[in-house]
């Protein structure tokens, strides 16, 4: 059960983190 919990959260967390990182990279231009 614990393994499944980790796999599921990683499966949704990684794409979300990737999207947030990409957006933050672009947003940095605001402060330059």
């Amino acid at each position, binding site marked *: 059960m614990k393994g499944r919990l980790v796999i599921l959260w990683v499966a949704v967390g990684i794409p*979300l983190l990737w999207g*947030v990182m990409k*957006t933050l990279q672009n947003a940095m231009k*605001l402060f330059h």
Partner: protein
Amino acid sequence: MTTSFLDRESTVAPPGFNRFLVPPAALAVHLSIGQAYAFSTFNLPLTKLIGITHSAPGDWDLKQVGWIFSIAIVFLGSSAAVFGRWVERVGPRKSMFTAALCFGSGFLLSAFGIHLHQLWLIYLGYGVLGGCGLGIGYISPVSTLIKWFPDRPGMATGMAIMGFGGGALIAAPLSVMLMEHFKTAASNGVLETFVTMGVIYFMYMMIGVYSVRVPAADWKPAGWVAPVQPKQLVTSANVAVDMAWRTPQFWLLWGVLCMNVSAGIGVIGQASPMIQEIFAGRVSPAVAASFVGLISLFNMAGRIFWASTSDYIGRRNTYMIFFLLGIVLYSSVPTLGHLGSIPLFVAAFCIILSMYGGGFATIPAYLRDMFGTYQVGAIHGRLLTAWSVAGVLGPVLVNYIRQYQIDNGVPKAQAYSITMYIMCGLLLIGFLCNFAMRPVKEKYHYRGSTP
């Protein structure tokens, strides 16, 4: 009668099931359908299907292409309203599967429309079919999450609805990357991107289909006891969907959502030109795009932050903050523009957009507080018609008033001042609706047995 894998009976969780397995299932669906917010990345490429690098004779124009998203949003609201009761009856797995099928095949039908260069097929594919996938997918995990987290309904639904905001953050760079990858001398890569995204999103939503579970009828979180003396605006009764929309509380909540969304959505659509016009010469289009990205992040983060906060301070108080703080911030925008302070201007809009997202994410828990858990998903579906109305009202108000002022000689940098004060007016109406909220009268309560 045999039970199929998709039936509600097959999804009842065994004893000892970890309830934290359910939010990622809901997130898998919401992160996928949240792609809709990033559909504009396809607008320009869709106008260059024949010319590839430029719009050629016979290519569609932006106005025609713009209808794809509008149709999808109309079908989002209407399918959530129409299929809400069905979603409650068949359970989350079958409804998530239907949503995945509609959303994935919507992309594939649209790709076929691109292949034949028939715009009506894209309207039908992404607009109608995809729109139904959006609506059904949006409401399918809501009541399940509320039942799994009776102690933290705001946090649970906030997590899922945060995914809808986050979906755009993933889809925007993903679409650009895929179009770049598939681009050739004979194609700008949109067709191939649509096919790929249709398959990816269908498979990703299947993670949710496979992992979602509903709690057993008598299940409660370990150690949790339902409050004996519930709070004034938290009911322990249930109201059926057909009765709920006859109550004043439903329409007050409809007003609360509609006003909160109208104010925010009007700004989202105009964010890029607005910051460029208010700070003319100081903000380039690229920097304005960064501003749009930043407020999208706050839109997403506000969903989990405000919905979780509402578990502690109450839903009514949370919306009071949205409306009162919103009025203060919107009315300060013209002054911040005059002062020429970009950081303060950006900060004000980041907070405004966090409350816009928070409004979406807190409403399911507010509905649960007012109408109980029985058919909360279906009631939520009907309430989403407020979103469809706000989707037209907000942008129309912002765009038309701005244009009217410019036509009457007001400088572009000052053309948003009146708009901001009108947004304050909308928030004041929302505040009054929220202020008038009282518990639902007993005559509306559901007397039958709940599943």
